[in-house]
């Protein structure tokens, strides 16, 4: 584990680490996305500050005593999740799932409002406190950025498929949809210019489905292997109709096909890790 250097770098320059080379290209793109520019005149009343940090659900003291209350682990997770934790979970899910997931627009908007509010507050604080506030805000920004960037990379991978299917189109934000369309256009123009136009006419087609009924648009592999952790006890769960059901309890970890736990993920019963 030789991350120590990079890690201290991150602390010193307030997340300097996260501004890797790849960032700069996409900064511009992301800047344009709606989620990033929230109107600055946020009334302080509309800003939600959440309950005290210490009373978070089960992980006080880093979950040391989990063994002690192994039995009452069933009735947890009912506590409302704060926006940051929610986006954090969505980020991890998004990173691990083969297909693009629902866009967390409202969550991001809330968070960016809070970020603006906190940034204004920073100016009036003394240095030591301002540093903590800045770090806090930078951490949120980093998360939002990485989340959006993860989605962009997935959109690039299956742009055609996502704009073709209604289900996926609805999962994209307005900006993402435009991005996907632009990407498809660019790709098509590039492919045509670089070689398709030189091929015999009957080989130039770019239809979604060929005359022979062959689908040409690549799809995400929904059967891909994923690791998931159970968040709320599911009970007996049939991984496959022919197999005996397996009891899924909170904190169990499985490696399985994405398609099998897809519905559980949508219901928030499991999370990907």
């Amino acid at each position, binding site marked *: 584990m030789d991350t120590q250097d990079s890690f201290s770098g991150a602390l010193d320059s307030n997340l300097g680490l996260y501004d890797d080379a790849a960032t700069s290209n996409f900064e511009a793109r992301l800047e344009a996305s709606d989620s990033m520019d929230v109107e600055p005149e946020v009334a302080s009343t509309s800003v939600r500050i959440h309950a005290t940090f210490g009373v978070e659900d089960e992980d006080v003291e880093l979950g040391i005593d*989990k063994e002690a209350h192994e039995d009452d682990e069933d009735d947890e997770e009912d506590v409302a999740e704060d926006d940051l934790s929610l986006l954090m979970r969505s980020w991890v899910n998004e990173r691990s799932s083969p297909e693009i997931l629902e866009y967390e627009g409202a969550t991001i908007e809330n968070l960016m409002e809070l970020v603006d509010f906190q940034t204004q507050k920073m100016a009036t604080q003394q240095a*030591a406190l301002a540093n903590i506030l800045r770090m806090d805000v930078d951490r949120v920004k980093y998360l939002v950025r990485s989340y959006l960037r993860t989605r962009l990379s997935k959109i690039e991978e299956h742009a055609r498929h996502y704009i073709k299917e209604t289900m996926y189109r609805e999962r994209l934000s307005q900006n993402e949809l435009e991005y996907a369309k632009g990407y498809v256009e660019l790709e098509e123009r590039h492919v045509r210019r670089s070689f398709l136009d030189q091929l015999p006419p009957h080989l130039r087609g770019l239809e979604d489905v060929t005359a022979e009924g062959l689908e040409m648009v690549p799809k995400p592999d929904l059967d891909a292997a994923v690791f998931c952790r159970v968040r709320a006890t599911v009970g007996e769960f049939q*991984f496959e109709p022919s197999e005996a059901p397996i009891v899924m309890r909170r904190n169990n970890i499985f490696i399985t096909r994405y398609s*099998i736990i897809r519905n559980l993920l949508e219901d928030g019963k499991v999370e990907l890790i």
Partner: protein
Amino acid sequence: MAITTRQTEGFTMPELEYLAQNESITIVPLHRMDRIELVRGAIGPFRPPQKTVVPLWVAIMLKRTNRCRIVAPKWMQYEHLRDLYKREEQPDAMFTRLPIYYLEIAHMLLTFAEDDLVESQGIRRLLQDLREVRQSKTMEGLRMLNSLQLQMDNLSMAEINEIRPLFGHSFDMLRQLDGLAQATETEQQQSQFADQSYAEMDDAFGSRYVH
């Protein structure tokens, strides 16, 4: 590419540390400070020597400027780790329970707050031993992998991230082989010429590896 190739295969170490830094930890502040409203909620007030719970990243920031002492979590105490190791080492033992970010947290505490840990050298050694036992156990688990599911409770985030490429690809490969086996089975039942279906299976294999 909006993210790096490494990132499509899982999480990078700094990313895991980023996630781990959101876990709570108990500190003893050394300076008075009022409550601080953070995005996720309020922390403090800091009234030495009263203990208080903060996110790990705050604890590390304060520690680096010498404004707090970090209270080692119970699972990271020498005796606890020793017991865990003993249990972990038993033949046929399951993975013992540890926080999902135990490796990241331990690494950060050993780096930034070593003076707050009792017997830090021993802790370091035990963690290393624990990790090795768990690693060899995980590799044993690979034998049990099938194309449907495998339960692997109590593995930590870093450990999962480490085995993700190997297990993921093996799983996908098994899945493809399973599909192939089923296809050939039905074919064999239909056709009297078994040789022919073998030839087809070779074709199928060939095409899968060519690209």
